[in-house]
């Protein structure tokens, strides 16, 4: 038994930690593209913003899609609620609220991440320092994850935390895939062909999968393979199927512990069944965009249902 407010704090703490890291990864992918490109990189940066879901708010503030502007907006700007700094701050505020539910190690790692990033992101980032800042962000979130997995009891506290992590992660992956595909795939006839385009790597890079992809598929980037990897691969820790495997598992633990099943259980299981039965061919035949849009909608619905069913809305 947990306070509804505590479950809420744990859920959002983990969503925001995931988001903080995701922003760094997106900027990293953008930086990589910009570096490997000879002409203006504004298109790449604009697609990064699109993936982050922040293109509209960005354009209200800036006119140029430059590395400095985008990095500033996605990493530092606390008026952007999804920026790394804003996300880590929200995560810490939630952690502070649920402090009694966290191990000392977990709380300290979040608090230290907040202190370190606050210091590091206090001033605009010099472009030369950007790679090391991105590394530092990823390191801080990795430390949080490490102390969390290493010290937390596997109970309902853990379950609610993981629900936050995987709902956020599934949303991130689906969005990245949706946006990039539109930008990168010139026409449907390209599906299935081998593309010699470094930009494909950016999709994989933005989910930290550019190396592991080659372990599973051949070295060429094929749109179908990339989509298969990010949607259906059971072992790829950021794939939709992977996220739903764990969402279902943690929901089941909660259902068993409390002796009660809710609407969220049915929703999660329905999505999981759909993912397990699906093939990448079927998904492309029916339309990747339509598939992803429906997925994002259902994933959001799941988040709302969890909050309602466990009384933390």
């Amino acid at each position, binding site marked *: 038994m*947990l306070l509804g407010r505590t479950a809420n704090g744990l859920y959002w703490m983990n969503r925001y930690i995931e988001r903080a890291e995701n922003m760094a990864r997106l900027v990293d992918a953008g930086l990589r593209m910009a570096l490997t490109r000879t002409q203006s990189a504004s298109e790449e940066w604009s697609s990064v913003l699109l993936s982050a879901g922040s293109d509209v708010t960005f354009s209200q503030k800036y006119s140029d899609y430059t590395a400095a502007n985008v990095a500033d907006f996605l990493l530092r700007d606390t008026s952007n609620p999804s920026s790394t700094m804003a996300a880590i701050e929200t995560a810490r505020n939630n952690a502070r609220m649920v402090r009694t539910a966290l191990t000392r190690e977990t709380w300290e790692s979040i608090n230290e991440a907040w202190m370190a990033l606050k210091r590091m992101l206090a001033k605009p980032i010099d472009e030369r320092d950007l790679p090391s800042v991105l590394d530092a962000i990823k390191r801080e979130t990795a430390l949080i994850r490490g102390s969390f997995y290493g010290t937390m009891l596997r109970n309902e506290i853990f379950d609610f935390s993981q629900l936050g992590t995987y709902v956020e992660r599934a949303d991130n992956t689906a969005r990245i895939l949706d946006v990039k595909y539109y930008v990168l795939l010139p026409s449907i006839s390209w599906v299935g062909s081998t593309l010699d385009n470094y930009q494909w790597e950016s999709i994989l890079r933005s989910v930290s999968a550019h190396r592991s992809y080659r372990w599973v598929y051949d070295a060429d980037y094929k749109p179908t393979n990339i989509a298969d990897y990010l949607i259906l691969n059971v072992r790829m820790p950021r794939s939709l199927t992977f996220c739903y495997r764990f969402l279902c598992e943690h929901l089941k633990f909660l259902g068993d512990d409390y002796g009660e099943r809710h609407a969220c259980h049915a929703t999660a299981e329905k999505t999981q069944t759909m993912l397990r039965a699906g093939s990448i061919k079927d998904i492309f035949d029916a339309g990747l965009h339509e598939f992803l849009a429906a997925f994002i909608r259902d994933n959001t619905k799941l988040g709302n249902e969890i909050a309602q069913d466990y009384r933390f809305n």
Partner: protein
Amino acid sequence: MRLAAFDEMLPEVSGLRRPYSAYDRWLKEQDPARLTEKMQDAERVFRKTGITFAVYGEQEASERLIPFDIVPRIISGNEWRRLTQGIEQRVQALNAFLDDIYHRQEILRAGRVPTELIARNEAFLPEMIGVRPPAGVYTHIIGVDIVRISEDEFYVLEDNARTPSGVSYMLENRETMMQLFPELFQKIKVRPVENYPQLLRQSLAAVRPQGTKGAPTIAVLTPGSYNSAYFEHAFLADQMGVQLVEGQDLRVVDGHVAMRTTEGYKQIDVLYRRVDDSFLDPLTFRPDSALGVPGIMDVYRAGNITIANAPGTGIADDKAIYSYMPEIVEFYTGRKAILGNIPTWRCSEPDSLKYVLEHIHELVIKEVHGSGGYGMLVGPAATKKECEAFAKKLQAKPSNYIAQPTLALSTCPILTDKGLAPRHVDLRPYVLVSDRIQIVPGGLTRVALKEGSLVVNSSQGGGTKDTWVLDD
């Protein structure tokens, strides 16, 4: 102005005092550079664990550390025994006074305390008249602020009978000292304070409502994570292994207070509240309060929940009541107070007011309902202009003020850039009341870090020290 103060480690007349002898030997063997390093380590530890407090009205420094000094304040076993006898007596009297004030009011009938002091006091809650809290305890957790002025003279500066704070610093200070100087604790036998959370939990469980079935469910009620003492609320809930709740988590369900959990509403039997009386129940007190629980007072009156400390205990630590504590102690315990009061002038009395106005530059003047070192005047440290301005306020509403002589509080050394230097200190031991009275050996030593300053409050630049009671 500098007062000749009694130094607890090295008094000018008699040389190094016994309780400090083992520590002094150790200290002399230490490399000063290493000590400075340890000082910085301590600050890192505090910042990392997030032991901060909020200072109201300061936007920038919304989370600040209370400075910690690594030189312990040491009290001998004998000194401690004397103190505890005095504290126990005082705490008994406080509870008896509260019970009396909300029932027969015999002390008023006997004319020992003026009736208007109670009747017109905002801290007196008419809603509590005739209500007897579970187990008959009103003030469960008390912090008694004690000052020392010589080898043998201890005085009570004030009683904190509502929601005394700072106990988490007592615990974290010890934890930090043990991390920094493990070898010291091998050499010197210091009585432990670590079990305070367990004692608190047992103490709260012992005063559960009569009808509680099985083990009572205990919760700590906090105003929320933006409150200045939130760290402490979370810390205590955590250490006791109980829920930390906010008003929004609670509601009255079937005549009981219940918290909203992931499995529905669950009954609470004992609520350790860190929310002021006036915010506790919007149906009874401030209607705009979002921090409390609508209807909790009805549950309380029905005997279905223990609220610690009980609503209305503020009447016992009111500064105007304080001046009557010697009479109160004698009235209820039949004996003279073991721990004395600081002589106090009540400005509501014309003769006293006249004296205070004439001697304003020598006195400490406090608001009757104030706390945290706000709204007070330290005459000797104030400019002429400040004194004059304060005198005007005083004349406008004399009953709002009390005055006390400026005492030369004892000093303890702190570590500065230039080595050890004496600073004024006070002491807040923590007392738990259930079917018995327990005092953890130690407490919070607050220290005025500014040279010569007598104000130890953390909101006014005070720091803290670990407090050792020797097992000798």
